[in-house]
């Protein structure tokens, strides 16, 4: 049985008013334990609405979302329990920091879960370690941190709840190139070490190709594709009709293949490309 099962889910904003707007329409997909899924789609395609339904912040207008086979809206009064199991990190999460110290802020989620003090301390330390926050920063005010550190502290606040599924809505937006690479690597390490399921909303095809196993493509409120990354990124033409593209390196290799070079299709990272190109050059005797 899949961990999360989304079936025929739709969401309509302000229904029965002149401002009525369908943000998500008849979306169905399954997520298995341990998946690392990238969610891509142009602005306004319904990604953010979709992820807010997955943790029960928005209630689907129709359709069902099942976690471990149980509809998350079965007991509306216990929806908070769902939010602890499906952790959602919003876009620009640093704007939600409010406590006096970073430690207290990261503790906010675990405190709401009603855990013991030692357990909370332990979780805060682990979460801070996962996102690479130094221990001495924990006693500082979150407002004294740098932009990148604030972002990490906010992500740690969700990781500290130890959710079964971690959803990140554009976690790298607005970070410098080094910051994004480091953050991405940390999220990947978290996924590998804990074996947790991660859903990763992003505009960067490179980021999705680098860390995700599967990708889910949203287009005009509908689920357009849901497959492994290499199969999705081998359809450059179809993606470009949706205002998306394949990672740069994939485009380069695709062009080389079109020019007659014997490379494999579906190369997603620079490392793989370098590997294939050196192999080829060795075979040709040029290296």
């Amino acid at each position, binding site marked *: 049985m899949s961990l999360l099962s989304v079936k025929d889910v739709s969401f309509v904003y302000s229904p029965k008013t002149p401002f009525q707007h369908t943000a998500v329409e008849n979306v169905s997909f399954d997520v298995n334990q341990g998946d690392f899924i990238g969610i891509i789609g142009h602005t306004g395609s319904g990604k953010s609405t979709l992820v807010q339904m997955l*943790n029960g912040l928005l209630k689907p207008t129709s359709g069902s979302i099942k976690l471990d086979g149980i509809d998350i809206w079965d007991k509306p009064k216990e929806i908070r329990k769902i*939010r602890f199991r499906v*952790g959602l990190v919003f876009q620009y999460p640093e*704007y939600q920091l409010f406590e006096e110290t970073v430690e207290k802020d990261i503790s*906010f989620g675990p405190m709401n879960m009603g855990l013991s003090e030692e357990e909370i301390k332990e979780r805060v330390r682990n979460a801070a370690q996962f996102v690479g926050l130094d221990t001495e920063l924990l006693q500082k005010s979150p407002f004294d941190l740098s932009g990148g550190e604030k972002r990490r502290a906010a992500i740690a606040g969700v990781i500290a709840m130890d959710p079964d599924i971690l959803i990140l809505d554009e976690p790298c937006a607005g970070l410098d190139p080094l910051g994004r690479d480091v953050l991405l690597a940390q999220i990947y390490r978290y996924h590998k070490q804990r074996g947790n399921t991660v859903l990763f909303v992003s505009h960067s095809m490179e980021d999705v190709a680098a860390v995700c196993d599967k990708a889910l493509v949203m287009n005009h409120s509908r689920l357009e594709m849901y497959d492994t990354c290499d199969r999705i990124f081998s359809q450059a033409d179809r993606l470009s009709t949706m205002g998306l593209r394949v990672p740069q390196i994939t485009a380069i290799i695709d062009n080389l293949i079109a020019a007659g070079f014997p490379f494999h299709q579906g190369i997603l990272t620079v490392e793989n490309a370098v590997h294939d190109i050196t192999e080829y050059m060795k075979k040709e005797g040029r290296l």
Partner: protein
Amino acid sequence: MRDITLGQYFPSDSVIHRLDPRVKILSLIAYIVLIFCTFNFVSLALMAAVVLLIVLLSKVPLKMYLKSLKVIIVIVVITSLLNLFYGTGEPIFQWGFIKVTWEGIKNAIFVCVRIICLILSSSVLTFTTSPTDLTDALERLMKPLKIFHVKVHEIAMMMTIALRFVPTLLEETDKIMAAQKARGADMESGNLITRIKALVPILVPLFVSAFRRAYELAVAMECRCYRGGEGRTRMKQLHLANRDYISIVFTLLVIAGVILLNIFFKFAV
């Protein structure tokens, strides 16, 4: 969060929408003063009829007006009840310390109708006038105060900015609430003190972002060489049209009507 209708602009294309905002503001002030100068039922009925006519002319859905009335319904009920029971004069009904008099009933109806007219008339102004028009008009109307060194332009600019940021801050509040709920914040249950405490995770980020926005806006305004109101021209000049003169005459007629009715029916009620 989004159902705050009081003070919300509702774009449409009615006569009332096209009126000069200065005329609308002055007429509203006249109307509010008049509402408290009605001393009998006939003049009160005239005032109610006037506001209903304007409400219909404004082409704003009646639902919107009902929504803004819903906010103050409690106040209307409480003040009417107080007036009902604290009337002086001959009691027509008495039970213990509670007594109802004709005077009380009359006062209750008066207060009720007055408050409703007050809310409806001011709703007409905010529904049919965009915030920028409103502050523009206020700036023009307050111009004479410059003699007393009142910083009219600065006040108007502050009002414009405040109004401009109401929807932005509401949206921001929604976002922060969602983010804290995602971390398990519980805002729906508990007693008063726990509920007030539950607001801290929302208010602190909201204030921080309000200050950040204020700072950014100040820098952006300076970048565009904003130096206050001295010698500043405006894109939209306000000019009085025929419909404005007609409505001024209408307002004057209503004023005269209320005064006459007050004198004429002095002993009627």
